[in-house]
């Protein structure tokens, strides 16, 4: 499991730009996929986010997974996202050919191809 804590890296409550999302590249580069292909993007303390930021985040994650040359299905968890899952964010996921669901606790789960079992966050 790889975890990227956005507040610790960016120290901003509203995440707007693609440039801000690119810090995730560095965080992923410092990680390896040895423990599996679950990537957690932790939005704790973040109060607002734009589709542009989410789009760039998914682009970066997909590129990184491509570099791992993994054939396994993979999954991205958005923990503590600042809003409920709405149509605009579902549209971003769809544009990346990902399935997106929201758990009872509010976590967004994005899956590629073969969906893995949903894990509720405590």
């Amino acid at each position, binding site marked *: 499991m790889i975890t990227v804590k956005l507040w610790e890296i960016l120290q901003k409550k509203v995440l707007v730009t693609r440039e801000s999302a690119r810090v995730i590249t560095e965080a992923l580069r410092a990680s390896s996929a040895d423990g599996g292909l679950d990537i957690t993007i932790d939005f704790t303390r973040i*109060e*607002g986010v734009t*589709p*542009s930021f989410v789009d760039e985040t998914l*682009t970066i994650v997909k590129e990184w997974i491509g570099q791992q040359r993994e054939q396994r299905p993979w999954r991205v968890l958005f923990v503590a996202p600042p809003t409920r899952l709405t149509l605009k964010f579902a549209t971003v996921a769809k*544009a990346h050919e990902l399935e997106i669901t929201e758990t009872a606790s509010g976590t967004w789960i994005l899956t590629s191809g073969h969906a893995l079992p949903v894990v509720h966050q405590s």
Partner: protein
Amino acid sequence: MRIEAPTNFWSASDLPSRFASRDPRQQTFVDQEVEIDLRQCEFILPTAIMWCLVYLFLASKRGCTCRLLVPENMGTCVYLKSIGLFDLLKSVGVEVDDRGVFSTRRDTQVVLPLTRFSRSEEVEELANRTLEALNARGTGAANLRPLVSEAFAELALNAAEHAQSSLGAFGLIQFYQQTQGERFICVVADGGIGVRRSLERNPNLRDRIPYDWVALELATRERVSGTGQPTRGIGLFGVAEDMRKSGRQLVLHSGIGILTISEDVELESRRATLFPGTLAFASIPT
């Protein structure tokens, strides 16, 4: 050329089109002097303020001698001074005689005064500053503050990334207390190429956009953008979706097209008096 504003000035559509339709972005704009006359103006909406600002900036950039005649009504004048209109205009050489007019720093209704920006990094900084100001003042419902900040950011990002505006863009966020209720108003405007020309950069759209109002309709659809990239074109679509809820409203005015989206009006677009660039207005009740 003198353009006289009415007593209640809501938008460019209130102006005599024989003057206001002269486009200061065009080489064919031949006027040597441009004067916008607000002397009779007693009430002015942020959409109209943005028109004054963009029109005079563009005319000034073209080398015209520009002048803003300030309202005789002191309250209106103090408001325009407080949001920063006069100082912004003076910064590019527009003549503004605001003697004896002082800004009210205590005006808690101005969340973000008129601010000029041109890069997406500045937009993120403004969005964070806005949220900070709203949280610090406790203005509006807590769950709406991020929405205000996000809506502004998305509209401002469009201006920074797609407008190709030589003068940059301007943003203003205000909290209104009216008899109909309290609401946030976010306004963003630029003096750029407009939505139609921006979308026409995408070869797949080039032949599908005969008018500005058609461009606005397309721009609010899912994944339509001038870039042609399949994951782009969701920002404005997302704002449009958000503004279809509970008393909210989105107005986009670009070139001679205007589009309105609200809870009651799914989507209405039509011809309008020229806005020399693009203006976006979002209204969010508390």
